[in-house]
């Protein structure tokens, strides 16, 4: 397997803090590598260094065997592109945004027209060329940013939490685009993510990061099998919890994930396990309600994120669950921080990972 | 910072281009330029414009008059910043020559100052001599301390210098009286000073040109009470900046200009200027008068007031300040 990019002993220090500490990693041609880790573990810094917009304090970076130096850095930048976590768009049309990188590369007008249309199609924004980029919805803006990157067809595609602030619909479009790009163009992709679905289904390999170091690298199957507990404990992926399972009197499996939170699962299991509940499977209500759901918890809203059509909430029931409800429900329920709510989900929604 | 170096070079080059371009453009409109510093009152009458127009049709020389106060004009000439000097202050002109900064003085014109004031003539100066009039004005001012009765140029100009000499002749301490309430100092040009006198209904010393102009326009309703006396004589002379001391001077062209002023054409223009507009001319020529050395009273007045004393003799221009290359200037 050819090595697309390699970091050798890379350290990056900012003023007081050491963002990356002696990182060694190889990225293989054509693979999708996911970076998982808590906030502040160095994922963004690593991506920026791979994008050649940040210079390491120490260590070397190699692209296809060529070492990156002050002289060739501008040339090497042409071979990779990074999609930021917080969407940054130029104050101009969608077309001009997507065309920017192509114009730098001196593509002809025809080439640009074609590639822009093609990229917009990938993110399902056909016909949006003349729209003002900054006037689009949050999800559409992030799709434009992705289209902008995809249009360049660089050898290396870097993504920093590409769906972090998106509702499921937009998130799905982006995930599809990423998957298609990898499959059809064999682009090497490195992406940082917090999302379980993406972490499980997209990458070939996963690298775990903590405190500026890469602690584990392996195929996604390996990582999930061996280290689900680690994953769960440092909230690398949302709604994952580590706990101890036992079989209760009535035959169901109860998993104690800590802080007095007992989760009832449908599948049989005992011992140390990690569980995952998809946010979409959780129902929220302001009052205790009667339902067939075996898992009902009372908690407080500790974080609210407005994603446009959907609102994402973090609820602390002893452990923090991420839940999604429609904007309409949110306003009808008149929720805000510290509102007391009830969460419910079926035992069958609990996945043992 | 390589791209910045490129940008710096471009910016410098473009700036130089714009500046050089504008300079060349304006120069092409100018050909040879003569810088003449002069007193504002000459400029304000419009005589200089008329002279320039006439001169430039005859000669390929462009005249640029820098109209500032007499004091400034002399300073500029002393600094070698201009090529010729055209003022009306004989005492200062003598100093200028003595300093070695100028040569070839020629008297080109004369007129009179005039003491003007409100039609009601509260201090009753009509018909008095200059000294008596000033005394009356001071008395009136000191007895009517609530109002302003005299406005002065107060700006170090030739007119102002004349005014000061008149106060001295009337035995007044200038510093003292100028501090008294009835004495107002305008610190501005002649038009503004006349306007102020008009507002205050006060008296002031003015050159005839500016006064006639404002009076004719109806801007001021002041009346001229005293004029055409020896005390109020106003004599204009031209001098060229000394080439030996200030090599950058455009000497030959300055002499050409001077020659034009004293030529028959130039003197005729001076004699006729203002006749159409005001019914009488604002200036009178002097060259012929002095040449003929007639016994006319005015000639004696000019000699007394405007000639420079040197070794018990008085000259229009003492010999040591004449340029030997141009003897025709002093026949």
């Amino acid at each position, binding site marked *: 397997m050819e090595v697309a990019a390699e970091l050798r002993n890379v350290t990056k220090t900012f003023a007081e803090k050491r963002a990356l500490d002696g990182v060694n990693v190889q990225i293989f041609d054509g693979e999708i590598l996911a970076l998982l880790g808590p906030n502040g573990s160095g994922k963004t810094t690593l991506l*920026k260094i791979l*994008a050649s*917009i940040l210079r390491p304090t120490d260590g070397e970076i190699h692209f296809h065997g060529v070492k990156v130096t002050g002289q060739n850095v*501008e040339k090497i*930048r*042409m071979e*990779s*592109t990074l999609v*930021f976590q*917080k969407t*940054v768009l*130029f104050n*101009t*049309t969608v077309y001009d945004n997507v065309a*920017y*990188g192509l114009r*730098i*590369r001196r593509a002809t007008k025809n080439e640009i027209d074609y590639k822009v249309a093609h990229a917009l199609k990938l993110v399902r924004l056909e*016909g*949006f*060329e*003349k*729209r*003002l980029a900054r*006037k689009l919805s949050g999800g559409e803006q992030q799709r434009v940013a992705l289209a*902008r*990157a995809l249009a*360049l067809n660089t050898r290396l595609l870097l993504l920093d939490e590409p769906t972090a602030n998106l509702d499921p619909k937009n998130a799905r479009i982006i995930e599809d685009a990423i998957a298609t790009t990898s499959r059809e163009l064999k682009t090497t992709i490195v992406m940082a993510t917090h999302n379980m679905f993406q972490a499980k289904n997209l990458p070939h390999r996963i690298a775990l990061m903590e405190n500026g170091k890469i602690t584990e690298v392996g195929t996604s199957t390996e990582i999930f099998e061996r280290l689900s507990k680690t994953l769960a404990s440092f909230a690398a992926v949302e709604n994952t919890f580590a706990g101890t399972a036992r079989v209760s009197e009535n035959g169901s499996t109860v998993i104690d994930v800590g802080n007095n939170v007992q989760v009832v699962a449908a599948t049989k299991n005992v011992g140390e396990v990690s569980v995952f509940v998809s946010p979409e499977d959780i129902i929220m209500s302001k009052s205790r309600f009667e339902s067939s759901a075996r898992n009902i918890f009372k908690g407080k809203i500790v974080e609210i994120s407005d994603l446009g059509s959907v609102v994402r909430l973090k609820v602390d029931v002893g452990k923090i669950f991420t839940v999604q409800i429609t904007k309409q429900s949110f306003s009808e329920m008149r929720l805000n921080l510290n509102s007391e709510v009830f969460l419910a989900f079926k035992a069958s929604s609990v996945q043992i990972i | 910072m390589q*791209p910045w170096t490129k940008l*710096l070079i*471009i*910016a410098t080059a473009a*700036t130089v281009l*714009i*500046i050089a371009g*504008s*300079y060349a453009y*304006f120069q092409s409109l*100018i050909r040879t330029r003569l*810088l003449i510093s002069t007193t504002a009152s000459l400029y*304000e009458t419009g005589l200089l*414009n008329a002279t320039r127009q006439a001169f430039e049709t005859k000669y390929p020389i462009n005249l*640029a*008059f*820098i109209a500032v106060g007499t004091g400034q004009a002399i300073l500029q000439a002393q*600094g*070698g*910043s*201009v090529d010729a000097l055209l003022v009306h202050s004989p005492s200062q002109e003598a100093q200028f020559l003595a300093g070695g900064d100028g040569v070839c003085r020629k008297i080109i014109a004369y007129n009179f100052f005039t003491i003007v004031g409100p039609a009601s003539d509260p201090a009753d100066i009509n018909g008095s001599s200059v000294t008596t009039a000033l005394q009356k004005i001071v008395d009136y001012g000191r007895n009517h301390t609530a109002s302003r009765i005299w406005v002065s140029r107060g700006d170090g100009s030739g007119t102002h210098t004349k005014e000061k000499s008149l106060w001295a002749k009337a035995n007044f301490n200038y510093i003292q009286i100028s501090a008294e309430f009835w004495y107002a100092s305008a610190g*501005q*040009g002649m*038009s*503004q000073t*006349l306007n102020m006198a008009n507002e205050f209904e006060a008296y002031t010393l003015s050159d005839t040109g500016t006064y006639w*102009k*404002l009076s004719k*326009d*109806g*801007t001021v309703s002041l009346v001229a009470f005293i004029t055409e006396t020896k005390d109020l004589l106003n004599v204009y002379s031209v001098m060229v900046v000394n080439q030996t001391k200030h090599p*950058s001077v455009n000497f030959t062209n300055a002499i050409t200009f001077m020659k034009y002023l004293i030529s028959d054409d130039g003197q005729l223009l001076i004699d006729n200027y203002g006749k159409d507009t005001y019914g009488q001319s604002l200036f009178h020529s002097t060259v012929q008068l002095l040449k003929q050395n007639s016994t006319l009273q005015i000639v004696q007045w000019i000699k007394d007031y405007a000639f420079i004393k040197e070794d018990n003799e008085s000259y229009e221009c003492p010999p040591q300040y004449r340029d030997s290359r141009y003897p025709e200037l002093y026949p």
Partner: protein
Amino acid sequence: MNMLDCLIASLQLSFSIDPRIIEITLRSLFVSGSAALIAALWGIPIATIIATKDFHGKFLIKTIFNSLIGIPTVALGFILFLAFSRETGPLGFLRLLYTPTAIIIGEAILITPIIVSLATTAIEAVDPEIANLAKTLGASESQASLVVLKEALEGVFLAGIASFNRAIGELGIAQFVGGFIFGQTELLTTGIWIELQLGNPGTSIALTVILLTMVFTINLALNTIQRIRMRGREWKSLLSSEM
């Protein structure tokens, strides 16, 4: 002659196509326009550097430029007068005194701090990640700076207009290094002053009217163009979204 007569006379003058007034107006435009152009040529790159790069003494430099905005024109004019004086000034050999070129130089010096300060603020208001973003799309350092500049264009544009206004409306420099030479260095501002000294208040008012009208019109025109550009883009965007 009371104020009303003056006003009427001046309006008549303004509308009559007096060649002298046209000449003065054109010269003012040329002189101040050139000054604004030179100030922009230098000021915008300087502003870009100050806004985007970190260096020692950055705060001091910014403060210096900010305070230079208020430099009194008479002071600057007098200093330049001394500098350009034919024999005594260090730049006298250039023979620039009493030429419009000297006024251009003086005004350019006067307004550069304005454009630097305002442009720096405009550029600093741009999202700092824009430059990084441009680089991830393949831009070189200078291309990235250009993108940032483009994002700040409206603010930089206004800075340019403000500096032009200051130049065309100043008297001190034109007075000292220009010298009101008839037909050569007369500008609108010096014209207003000298016509008053000459006892022609009507002409002064006419020139004042012209100066104010011109400044207002130019500003209106430039700002409208900006709006049309923005609106045009919004319209196109609106139209295509409804399709």
